[in-house]
């Protein structure tokens, strides 16, 4: 802990890492609340895995065709938004089984990513950091991008808040009021996509879904209003990412995994706590 603090003052990559976790918690707390309430965590998980395809493609084309401006994150944003729209349109329009389409997209996205990464000449160690996250590699440029996406997510949520809540609560009623239900559903999915992209840098593709859903799951045991759940989830996200970073620093553990374990542990404790409380109540 103390060595983390002294290093934090000196090492800019550590400062970046801490900031990245804090910034991305804002988006995950806000959007995660919609994701959990609308019960679409599996869609968020599918989007996060699809991202590998975009990352792989962007890296491949940038190396092979020497496109220096093309960064993996561009591919990530594009593939996340594209998969969100595909899943959204399929679940609204087609008679196709929605979960089948989602799993197909999930696996195909990853497969494409692996092929691209395999065929990209040169150094290929990055695959692991995409899958499991490497918060210590976050650069100043990444931070700016995370901040911009954060701003976008928060601004859109503030503008469309009432409509999004109404659609999550009772889609059919909203439709009878003439609210453009499909637009708001796609909006929630696109915000999810953007949030997934910026969370990938912190905990990696595989563990994104935990950082999006666990803080909300914990908060919803203590708060019974959407706004309260959102704010407490943001706070919890910040606590988890920061303490994940701090705890993993000295023993040199992967910080993403420590963050998620911490969140899982707290979630487990809240479940146990509330079931004990209920048993106690029923005894009395």
């Amino acid at each position, binding site marked *: 802990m103390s060595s983390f603090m002294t290093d934090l003052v000196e090492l800019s990559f550590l400062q970046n890492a801490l900031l990245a976790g804090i910034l991305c918690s804002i988006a995950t707390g806000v959007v995660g609340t919609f994701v959990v309430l609308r019960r679409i965590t599996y869609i968020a998980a599918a989007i996060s895995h699809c991202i590998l395809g975009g990352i792989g493609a962007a890296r491949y084309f940038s190396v092979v065709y020497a496109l220096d401006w093309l960064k993996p994150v561009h591919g990530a944003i594009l593939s996340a938004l594209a998969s969100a729209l595909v899943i959204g349109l399929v679940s609204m329009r087609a008679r196709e089984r929605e979960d089948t389409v989602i799993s197909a997209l999930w696996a195909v996205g990853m497969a494409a990513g692996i092929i691209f990464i395999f065929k990209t000449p040169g150094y290929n160690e990055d695959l692991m950091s995409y899958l499991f996250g490497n918060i210590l590699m976050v650069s100043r440029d990444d931070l700016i991008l995370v901040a911009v996406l954060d701003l976008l997510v928060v601004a859109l949520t*503030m503008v469309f808040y009432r409509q999004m809540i109404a659609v999550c609560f009772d889609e059919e009623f909203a439709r009878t009021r003439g609210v453009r239900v499909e637009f708001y559903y796609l909006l929630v999915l696109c915000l999810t996509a953007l949030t997934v992209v910026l969370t990938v840098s912190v905990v990696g593709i595989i563990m994104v879904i935990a950082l999006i859903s666990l803080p909300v799951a914990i908060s919803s045991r203590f708060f*019974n209003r*959407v706004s309260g759940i959102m704010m407490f989830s943001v706070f919890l996200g910040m606590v988890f990412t920061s303490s994940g970073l701090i705890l993993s620093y000295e023993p040199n553990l992967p910080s993403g995994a420590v963050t998620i374990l911490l969140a899982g542990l707290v979630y487990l404790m809240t479940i146990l706590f509330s079931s004990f409380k209920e048993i106690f109540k029923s005894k009395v």
Partner: protein
Amino acid sequence: MSHDIIITLADVDFSYQSDFKVLKNINLNICAGDFACIVGPNGGGKTTLLKLMLGLIKPDSGTISIFGRSPEKSLNKIGYVPQHTKFDSNFPVSVLDVVMMGFLDRNFSWGRYSRQQKEIALQALEEAGVGGLADKSFADLSGGQRQRALVARAIVSGPQILLLDEPTSNIDIHGTEHFYDMFEQLNRKFTIIMVSHDIGFVSNRVKSVICVRQTLQIHPISELTGETLQNIYGAGVNVIRHDHRCSEGGHSCLHS
């Protein structure tokens, strides 16, 4: 209240899949001020009929007009009360927030609900008989209270017609009587059409009964005489006489 025809369904057919018609050749007129009850067996097309009037689904053929316009263009004339079992009962919103969702419409607006809207919402809760519950969590309400809150949500936008989908399905006989008190009050301001799960009996507050089983029949209702049945259903129910047919909208009985 005038007795003009405000809802007309003419030769309406509807099918979810092309091979089976859920509704066939439906002709129906509903007058302003009516309190109509749609009854019929499960899968008979009751809720489908309601959804057609709401414009949530479109007929294969035939026309539906509400105040002379298509259902989609008459959305602001209709207040809809869905079955409360349809959505996540643990959703973290206050009762007042649920009611104010009724203000949202086609025209986008952002920011908070206005003070005036809040006043209207509180008044609607009062009218629905759950005035004191505005600040409670929707999740903490009983089935009946939730249903009443949803009625309040349906009326805040100032509709003229109320469409209710099995509003009393989760409520005991005693509670149902209180519900009909509320409906009777509301019927002074709104034309009410409700779907009921009960085939044999309807409250005697209902003014007309529409039976749906793929096709549509309008049946007369007769006062209950059997005391046993009175005991089962409590006071104030009418037997629907499925063995009789009425002319459209009328109750003159013709032996079939």
